[in-house]
């Protein structure tokens, strides 16, 4: 690490060097901070959109259980959560609030999709397709937004 400590009165050049150093350190720590969260969001979008379609297809096909897609969906969710938990070492400013918004949006769509496809639109493939599209778009937008922060 560069030692930019100054003794005596500080001049403009030293102040500029310190400001540059502050920017450099800040950028360095932030770089690559979001990849676990971005991976999680994209993975969550893929798993949940495919899951909602799999559940609907399973309902349409006689003698087909939703157990297998449910198990694999659960496995993937665990993998994604462990990835975030183990590999997140830095979080960008305001990430806690943004994460709450991302998860709230996904959770609302997932619950609406599961409830409505199980009650009101049971076996309706168009509805499952619509919810899968909404889940895909919302999680992708959230992931890309986080990537640009």
């Amino acid at each position, binding site marked *: 690490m560069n030692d930019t400590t100054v003794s005596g009165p500080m001049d403009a050049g030293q102040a500029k060097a310190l400001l540059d150093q502050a920017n450099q350190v800040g950028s360095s720590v*932030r770089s690559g901070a979001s990849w676990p969260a971005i991976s999680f969001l994209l993975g969550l979008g893929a798993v949940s959109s495919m899951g909602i379609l799999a559940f609907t297809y399973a309902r349409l096909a006689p003698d087909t259980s939703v157990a297998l897609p449910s198990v694999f969906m659960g496995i993937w969710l665990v993998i994604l959560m462990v990835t975030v938990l183990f590999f997140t070492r830095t979080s*960008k400013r305001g990430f806690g609030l943004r994460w709450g918004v991302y998860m709230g949006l996904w959770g609302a769509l997932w619950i609406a999709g599961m409830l409505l496809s199980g009650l009101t639109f049971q076996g309706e493939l168009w509805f499952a397709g619509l919810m899968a599209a909404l889940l895909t778009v919302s999680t992708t937008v959230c992931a890309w937004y986080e990537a640009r922060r």
Partner: protein
Amino acid sequence: MSTPATSNHPRHQLNDILGHPVRFSLTAALAQTEEVDFATLRNHLQVSDSVLSKQATSLESAGYVRIRKGYIGKRPRTWLKLTKVGEQVWQNHLAALQEIAFPQRQAND
């Protein structure tokens, strides 16, 4: 006749605690993030564990940094975060540095 020393020179607004190079860089890193773990900071600042620990504790004692210890699985992990006071002090410190670095710009503002 010599010009009298004025106490409102921006250098008087600089925070002494942040004058130390490791504390300065540590605060600069935390100011750009919500929370950073100890090992990441150590790697980015290129200092030893003991140096970082000592300076982080010093900033914690001043009320500028919050240190949180936890576990990921069975592995201990330490997280550091700038407090509200720390953020304010850092912003003031940066503003003073800006004034020193660009006195003309400050005068025009």
